[in-house]
């Protein structure tokens, strides 16, 4: 994994361990609406990867179709990206992950992309425990097609055209929990403080790490009565876990009183520090997390933070018992049995 220092140096800009500046993690100019929550998440992603000092080319950006799914073009310009088809990012990400277990997969999707047309693939990505970070930019509507309700629109939420949603909402975090996802979190595009450590934790997590990020659509779903508007989210958001991500051999941030923290140590020695002080459930206990979520729903509280983690679940490559060498690194000699085996094989067919 060799890499060369970027050509452009911006002496004034802070550098990460690799000597890259934030510039090296930027993408092309966003074409989203001014104020769109998605842009804040893009920024948080770029910032997280910068802070983690991950070389841009070790990341593969995967997405479906939608305003949210466009964002991978707007961050990490030095990373390959794949803007596939609507709702099918999980399968493309699965194939990519199978081809090369060494890259870091960052999937970005929308609530329409994942909760409607992509529901089947989302569910099975969870089931396979792909080693990837899966972020849903959740605005409760179909932004790119002009604001129709999505399946994550809350029961009773009123959309821009004044219609009240009478369908049960699909809580993607709750769903992920029910399906046994190994890392489940929820956050808000407006809360970088919480979002960045979550993204860093997710990216460093050796399994399927899901973050449902509420991300208001300023153009179509930021109206009064919408439960996905900036105002509503700010009013109803309950920040429950105070999390910090700690890179290998760095010291734990002051933001968390160490006494109160629990550490989730990851394969590379890095760990998550969770402040359990004001948490009224156990994030390592699925049932407890499900219960917390369920009660939050009833109380109209938006429970955010790291809801659940399971440090031990096997990921897809472990389950399939594939070689530790990335499959895309093998050459003909490694893969082709060669004519040698054919004598016996032909003989068996007579």
């Amino acid at each position, binding site marked *: 994994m060799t*890499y*060369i220092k*970027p*050509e452009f140096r911006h002496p004034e800009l802070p550098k990460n361990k690799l000597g890259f500046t934030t510039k*090296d993690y930027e993408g*092309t100019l966003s074409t989203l609406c001014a104020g769109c929550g998605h842009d804040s998440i893009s920024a948080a992603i770029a910032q997280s990867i910068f802070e983690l000092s991950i070389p*841009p*080319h*070790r990341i*593969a950006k*995967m997405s479906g179709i939608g305003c949210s799914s466009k964002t991978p*073009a707007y961050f990490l*310009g*030095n*990373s*390959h*990206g*794949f*803007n*596939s*088809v609507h709702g*099918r990012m*999980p*399968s*493309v*990400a*699965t*194939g*990519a*992950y*199978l*081809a*090369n277990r*060494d*890259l870091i997969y960052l999937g970005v999707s929308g609530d329409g992309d994942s909760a409607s047309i992509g529901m089947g*693939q989302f*569910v*099975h990505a969870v089931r396979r425990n792909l080693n990837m970070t899966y972020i849903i930019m959740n605005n409760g509507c179909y932004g790119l097609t002009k604001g129709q309700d999505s399946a994550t629109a809350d029961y009773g939420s009123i959309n821009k055209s004044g219609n009240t949603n009478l369908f049960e909402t699909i809580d993607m975090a709750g769903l992920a929990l029910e399906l046994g996802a190994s890392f489940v979190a929820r956050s808000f595009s407006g809360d970088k403080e919480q979002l960045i450590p979550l993204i860093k934790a997710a990216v460093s997590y050796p399994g399927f790490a899901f973050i449902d990020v509420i991300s208001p659509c300023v153009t179509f779903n930021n109206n009064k009565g919408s439960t996905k508007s900036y105002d509503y989210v700010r009013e109803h958001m309950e920040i429950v876990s105070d999390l910090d991500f700690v890179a290998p051999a760095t010291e734990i941030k002051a933001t968390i009183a160490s006494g109160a923290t629990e550490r989730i140590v990851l394969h590379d020695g890095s760990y998550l520090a969770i402040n359990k002080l004001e948490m009224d459930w156990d994030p390592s206990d699925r049932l407890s997390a499900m219960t917390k979520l369920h009660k939050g729903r009833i109380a109209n509280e938006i429970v955010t933070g790291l809801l659940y983690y399971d440090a031990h679940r096997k990921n*897809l490559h472990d389950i*399939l*018992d*594939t*070689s*530790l*060498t990335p*499959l*895309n690194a093998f*050459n*003909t000699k*490694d*893969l*082709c*049995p060669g*004519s040698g*085996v*054919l004598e016996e*094989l*032909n003989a068996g*067919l*007579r």
Partner: protein
Amino acid sequence: MLRVEKINDFVIRLANVNGTGSASANNLFAKAIFRMGVPVSPKNIFPSNIQGLPTWYEIRVSDKGYLGRRAGIDIMVSINPQSIARDVENISPGGYFVYDNTKPLAKELLRDDVTNIGIPMTGLTTEHYTDPRLRLLFKNMIYVGAVSALINMDMGILEQMVSDQFKGKEKLVTPNVKALRLGADYIAKHYEVPCHLKLERKDLNKDRIMFDGNSACALGAVFAGATVGAWYPITPSTSLMSAFDDYASQYRIDQDGKKKYAFVQAEDELAAIGMAIGANWNGARGFTATSGPGISLMTEFLGLAYFAEIPLVLIDVQRGGPSTGMPTRTQQSDILACAYASHGDTKHPLIFPSTPKDCFDLTAHAFDLAEQLQTPIIVMTDLDLGMNEHYSEKITWDDSKVMKRGKVLSAEDLEKMEKFGRYLDVDGDALTYRTIPGTHPTKGSFFTRGTSRTEMAVYTEESEPYLRNMDRLSKKWNTIKSYMPDPEFPVDYNHGNEAGVIYFGTSDFSTMEAADELKNEGIHLDLMRIKAFPFNALVEDFIHSHERIFVVEQNRDAQMRTLLINELNIDPSKLIPVLNYDGLPITAKHIFDRIIGQFGYSSSSSINQHDIYKTGI
């Protein structure tokens, strides 16, 4: 009954109930004939359920090498009460009917224009065996023994095979062999054997094997270096994917005992092809196999792979359509669906194997083509080729071959380059350079998408770059032609005759046989077997150098003919369709009848050709 003796030239059909383990006994029998050195072609005709419905195993013996399906059953063994009446009808006059006479059979089932051979199969099994499950199995061995004696099969071969088969579980050998003998001895004792249909040792099978196309495709994928097999179960492609897993688990284990391949059962066909696309995008040879319904579900993704130019191998083991159609019958009816799969202006190269050897060679080749051409390559096989054991040349491999990865840039290449444009036609062949994610930290990254883009892979909605890209893709289509395998011109079947025959896939044997029969009638035809779409100049020349062309296909709508007239601008009146779409492999007689009709000869109509299949299987 007047009869001409026939050596190594007859058809045997074994009628049974599925789920009763007859398959292994039947295979054993066919294999034994093969070991007699005589070309043989078994076909399994099975229902779309798991247990209890009629199933037929048909064996054609022909040392002339005519191994397509043939009309007319010479020896019928029926131990299935559900089908016995229809089975009896299907025996050719002068043929043989072998049945279980433990209980007396209804008079009307005993035709007087055939030799009726009753054997107390059930009786013998109850007499000689105790375990009811085994009795069922041995009943099959009894008729195998009986028919073997009837056609003068070398029992030594059968017994040898039995002992090979049960290596390890020796105590199973004796009862099995005993069952064979019970059948053989009984028939020898009560009837005149051998009958006028005789097997005779030959040495025609050197370098030949009996292999199913699905396994051959799978083996080809393993040799080609396929590392990601994503699939969703569907008849008749399921056995192809499991064969891939079997071979790979044998040949693809690394020093730590881990797998140098990934085999994933997807949640559906959309996911399966999505995974294959993701793998190829990321530099691994990913593939999937499916059948008609899966093809339909993969349509959107195929358009993405075409437009984003992602390599992909997709194997379509065709079955009877439309919709769920006839899931356990064969057809070549997905040709249009595959060639023009997806909305917008899209086209996909197709490859048409005819034999297991073909399946192996062409599937392996498809992986090179996919990466060189950066587009999906669809291998079009079918249920007959895929699920039946076919008489085939043995498998060979040239060890000097290396994977042709096409235009992929390394970190070094990128270092040297001025600028990299994913969709820049640098070499003028419309094939552009790609990079694999993770290659270089600051160079060569690009954004893959299904939307319009510039040569630099930058999103655009401008007409001009869109047009340039679309026109390059048209140009690429021409480049593709030059990469596609040439058609095959069978020797002795190309003498500049006025009329030609175009055929492909599993119509192979039957077309050649029909051509020979027509020659006997004084009708001389030139033959060309198409192996790929888009068609190259050789195909075009063949058509232009003949007055009229018969196009043999196993579908209703003459789909290959459509591709020929549309892509080569051929006058449709020149291409005469010869179609079979009843779900059963096409027969020489069917082709013969249609072609000879065109020459103004009287011909037995297609209807009575189908009568033979009142069994309707």
